[in-house]
């Protein structure tokens, strides 16, 4: 038995999502001259089945030993936005919440399914090197 292999509350796809995010971030860093990835912004729709806290934790684990280690993750939640199937009006509302105009439920999802790496902040290789040298010169302490 491999008891305890899954985290409490069940296995998580946040781990898979975090790994993909790190791959995409590192690829984007590489395409833009390299350097350490110090921050990343994710657009996360509220209709996705991704838990932000679990994702934040999984992202920290997934970055270990990479140029994104210690990267600060900003998660921007995008509310659900629906176009009513009955009257066509557009509102921010939950899937099972009635349309405020006509009372119908459901409709076309315009926003809320996002799982998109929006931006990354790169520390330029030069800057990282000079910080390292400076740190060495001052003994690395405050």
């Amino acid at each position: 038995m491999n008891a305890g292999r899954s985290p409490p509350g069940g296995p998580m796809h946040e781990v898979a999502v975090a790994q993909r995010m790190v791959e995409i971030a590192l690829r984007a860093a590489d395409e833009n001259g390299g350097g350490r990835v110090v921050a990343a912004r994710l657009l996360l729709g509220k209709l996705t089945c991704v838990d932000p806290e679990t994702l934040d934790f999984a992202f920290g684990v997934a970055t270990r030993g990479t140029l994104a280690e210690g990267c600060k993750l900003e998660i921007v939640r995008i509310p659900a936005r629906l176009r009513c199937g009955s009257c066509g009006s557009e509102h921010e509302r939950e899937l099972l919440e009635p349309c405020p105009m006509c009372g119908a439920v459901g409709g076309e999802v315009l926003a809320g399914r996002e799982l998109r790496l929006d931006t990354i902040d790169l520390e330029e290789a030069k800057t990282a090197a000079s910080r390292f040298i400076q740190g060495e010169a001052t003994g690395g302490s405050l």
Partner: protein
Amino acid sequence: MTTQVDVGRDVLQDNTRDAQANRELFARAGIYVLNLMSGAGAGKTTLLERTVGALNGRMRLAVIAGDLETRRDADRIGRHGVPVVQINTGGACHIEAHQIAKAAAQFELSEFDLLIIENVGNLVCPAEFDLGEHDKVMMLSCTEGHDKPAKYPLMFRESRAMLLSKMDLLPHTNFDVDAAIADARALNPGIEVIKLSALTGEGLSAWFDWIKSRINAARG
């Protein structure tokens, strides 16, 4: 000094690309592919055993069974004389499109009419991962509670059909069939509902007919 880089990439883009490749592969082979999803313990494997037992010989079918760690599901289904490939997700809660591509390569797809993917038992994650299937079908057992469509809307929204299973146990539960169907239809007006029991056989012929009609529809 830091510089900000616009990335603007869908995190699951690789899966989407792999799913599209699967879709093209299935279309070329002329095989209809169904992705069966449910929470753990809703009865997917038992239903598949009944399905495979009834349809084998009337059509050519194959199964890909996803499981966290074991081969039990594949062994149970394989006893009915159909080819089964097991995907062990190693603790992951869902199947991804590239795993389906690898598993499907073990079949001569054009020799089959129907491929059923038994997803990992989980109401949340599998709905996020397109596998390139023709239809997603979700199964909800009446022992799980009728509030599931409201709590896990994505899977109900993405599915073409909802199977209400373990109907033989309905009298022993407080499951509200009408409420479950009403919520599922509010999320997905076109969703078809089939009530069944793999134990008593209730509703199974409707399920088999539905599969056959979908195979024909896929052939256009």
